[in-house]
């Protein structure tokens, strides 16, 4: 025979069901010696005789000494069993395997401290009670199968607990069992009420496990006439307020919605049980009355501290007049405001920078071994950031996608959007991309959930490099570096992380030889390069005729700091002082401008409108502090002479000053001088613009496509892993 098991029942005038309960306990089939313990607090209705008849061990206490927590602690002390199953005097085990199911729950793991089971309503219970019980116990394991609950003391584990603490902490000693070893560590709180909830919470927070076992069923429910229900809920919620500080929500919206929700549950339950028509309407009217009174009882009960004692006594079903708050320590895991005057920080599941955090500790780029075959067609997955219409970087990416498609390769585009800038689904994004950028064939996916592998996977922006590094089933991982993104940010976490992506070990394809050199020299990365093409159909060449003297097209995208817009404005202000006929036309920004000189602002406009501006203006300004802008190419294609800032980033691509563009020192007066030279020396300017057009004509998208395809072929021929 194994160790003993105890069934403990606190009793006070419980003769109505006690015989039934004890008969069912005695009928239990378990392979342990069963001890039946009754703690009586002064019954006068024959309960003791019934208990004696069933051979219970009876312990008597005065009624004044009874408290739900204290009396159960006493039962635990007196019990000889290793496990103590608690029942109340009106909860009857539903079958002879009830206790065995409880013990089976403890056997599920060594750290199981508590086991509890469902309550079946008594046959005469109302539909509201039946529905409520069914719904309540469906919380665990969907109502079928046993469910082991244990809090993981990790970020996600604690978030799950805080999101729905009741699911984890619920325990009921109407039908629940406690392991003695666990109780010795964490006893019941000596509170007048909700002792089981506190025990469940403290044990689960201490890292112990709790099991719901559907086989450990009891028959138990309370039914009262409507007004008595109100009084019962008054008592229950007064106690919840006293012990746990719970105050039931009250409001013009929340209260009716709560009642409506509860009636709705009853309605669905009744329909599931085949109730229809007039009968349904009648029963729902009963439901509405019940839930109204229940809610009223909860609201008044949880605010009973505001009522005079005689009123409390009158409303209480127990006839208790007192209101005695109990000090219970706040749960350390559920505590919301640990510091006076502070507010809790909102806890979210989708912190935007989580993708960076998860990228550490550093690990090598994930690729699969391959033999170095370059046989086409290839499958190419592009991971791109969310876009806005007009984004030049995306235009370049999609043009390259199209170029690979035209060479027979298969592409797919995955939009990586940790900042949730665009919640649309892939099909909507694809439609926009095809309409406003380039009509590619590739499918578009929002997020990386549908990614399963490719011959080559390409990161196209610094944040995309983090997930691309770890994506599975790719022969090669490539980083398309259009700009030195570290410089996009002030000294910050972002600038650190952006720089980090250049050290991850990707095989790079850079926009411009300058960027490729930078990747090689500063970051020691393998780098090929490509040069962008220009849309020569849209940006057609125009000569001197039709150009408006003094009109200057100015790329004023102030949202992008690397375009040095204030520097351009300073140069224009200097020139405006010298030339009253200066007519700057700004474009490229959605932000309003306030300037010390007269100018027009076109804002963000389609390429065709820009082409028109480039054909009418006499000079253009485009500044680039990192890789040079494609806007410069478009102006050059349109025959518009332009001023750029000097520096290796521009000079390495566009040659010496005056060859294709005017390169200015980075000072306002030098910019004004360079621009003035373009406006005054029209013949020289036109000749330079013609050379620039010839230069741009050689930079086609076909050439860019060839350069990217050649780079990918070189990577595939020389595998990262063989």
């Amino acid at each position, binding site marked *: 025979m194994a160790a003993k098991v105890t069934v403990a029942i606190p009793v006070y005038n419980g003769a109505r069901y006690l015989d039934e309960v004890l008969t069912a306990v005695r009928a239990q089939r378990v392979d342990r010696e069963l001890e039946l313990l009754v703690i009586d607090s002064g019954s006068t209705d024959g309960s003791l005789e019934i208990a004696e008849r069933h051979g219970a061990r009876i312990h008597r206490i005065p009624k004044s000494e009874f408290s739900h927590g204290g009396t159960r602690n006493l039962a635990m002390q007196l019990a000889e069993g290793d496990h103590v199953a608690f029942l109340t005097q009106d909860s009857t085990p539903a079958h002879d395997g009830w206790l065995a199911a409880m013990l089976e729950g403890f056997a599920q793991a060594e750290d199981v401290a508590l086991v509890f089971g469902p309550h079946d309503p008594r046959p005469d219970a109302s539909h509201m009670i039946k529905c409520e019980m069914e719904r309540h116990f469906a919380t665990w394991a969907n109502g079928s199968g046993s469910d082991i609950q244990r809090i993981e003391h990790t970020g996600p584990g604690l978030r799950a607990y805080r999101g729905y603490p009741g699911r984890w902490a619920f325990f009921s000693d109407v039908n629940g069992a406690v392991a003695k070893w666990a109780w010795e560590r964490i006893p019941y709180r000596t509170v007048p009420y909700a002792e089981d909830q506190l025990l469940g919470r403290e044990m689960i927070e201490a890292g112990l496990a709790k099991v719901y076992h559907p086989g450990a069923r009891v028959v138990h429910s309370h039914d009262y006439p409507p007004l008595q229900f109100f009084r019962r809920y008054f008592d229950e919620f007064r106690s919840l307020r006293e012990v746990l500080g719970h105050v039931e929500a009250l409001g013009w919206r929340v209260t009716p919605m709560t009642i409506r929700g509860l009636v709705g549950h009853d309605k669905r339950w009744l329909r599931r049980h085949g109730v229809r028509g007039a009968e349904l309407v009648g029963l729902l009217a009963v439901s509405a009355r019940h839930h109204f009174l229940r809610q009223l009882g909860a609201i008044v009960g949880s605010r009973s501290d505001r009522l005079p004692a005689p009123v409390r006594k009158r409303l209480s079903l127990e006839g208790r007049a007192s209101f005695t708050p109990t000090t219970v320590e706040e749960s350390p895991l559920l505590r919301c405001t640990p510091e006076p005057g502070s507010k809790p920080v909102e806890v979210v599941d989708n912190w935007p920078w989580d993708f960076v955090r998860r990228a550490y500790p550093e690990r090598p780029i994930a690729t699969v071994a391959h033999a170095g075959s370059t046989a086409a067609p290839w499958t190419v997955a592009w991971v791109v950031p969310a876009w806005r219409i007009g984004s030049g970087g995306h235009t370049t990416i999609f043009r390259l996608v199209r170029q690979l498609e035209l060479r027979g390769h*298969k592409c797919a585009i995955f939009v990586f959007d940790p900042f949730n800038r665009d919640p649309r*689904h*892939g099909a909507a994004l694809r439609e926009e991309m095809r309409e406003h950028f380039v009509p590619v064939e*590739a499918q*578009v996916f929002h997020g990386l959930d*549908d990614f399963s592998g490719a011959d080559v996977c390409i990161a196209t922006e610094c944040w995309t490099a983090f997930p691309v590094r770890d994506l599975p089933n790719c022969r090669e991982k490539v980083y398309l570096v259009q700009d030195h993104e570290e410089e996009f940010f002030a000294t910050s976490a972002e600038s650190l992380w952006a720089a980090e992506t250049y050290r991850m070990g990707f095989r790079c394809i850079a926009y411009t030889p300058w960027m490729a050199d930078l990747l090689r020299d500063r970051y020691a990365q393998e780098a090929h390069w490509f040069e962008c093409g220009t849309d020569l159909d849209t940006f057609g060449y125009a000569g001197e005729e039709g150009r408006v003297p003094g009109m200057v097209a100015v790329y004023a995208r102030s949202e992008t700091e690397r375009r040095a817009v204030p520097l351009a404005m300073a140069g224009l202000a200097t020139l405006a002082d010298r030339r009253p006929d200066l007519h700057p036309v700004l474009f490229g920004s959605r932000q309003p401008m306030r300037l010390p000189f007269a100018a027009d602002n076109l804002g963000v406009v389609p390429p065709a409108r820009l082409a028109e501006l480039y054909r009418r203006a006499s000079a253009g300004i485009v500044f680039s502090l990192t890789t040079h802008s494609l806007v410069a190419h478009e102006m050059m294609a349109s025959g518009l002479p332009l001023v750029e800032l000097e520096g290796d980033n521009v000079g390495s691509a566009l040659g010496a000053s005056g060859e294709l563009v005017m390169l200015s020192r980075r000072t306002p007066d030098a910019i004004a001088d360079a621009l003035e030279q373009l406006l005054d020396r029209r013949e020289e300017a036109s000749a330079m613009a013609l050379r620039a057009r010839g230069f741009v004509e050689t930079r086609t998208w076909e050439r860019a496509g060839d350069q990217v395809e050649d780079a990918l072929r070189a990577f595939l021929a020389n595998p990262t892993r063989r």
Partner: protein
Amino acid sequence: MPRRQSTLGRLSETDWKQRALTAEAALEEARTETARLWSELHEHRADQAELNYYRRLYEDQVDSVSWKLTRPLREAKVLAGKAQRRLAARR
């Protein structure tokens, strides 16, 4: 005997080249087919993602308070339509 060996060697070499060419052709075919299937798989997944999106949208819609509140209006509209059709049929 040496002559015989030489003939066999030539035959073997020709055979090897032929087999290599056949294998290369098969590999190319397999690659094309793989890429086609990859593309088809992504089309299917994109369709599925779109379907799931609209399904969620539909569920959110019919689960919204406004949809539930306006349900009597929709039901009334259906009933009015039925009544109109019946009246029209009688005339």
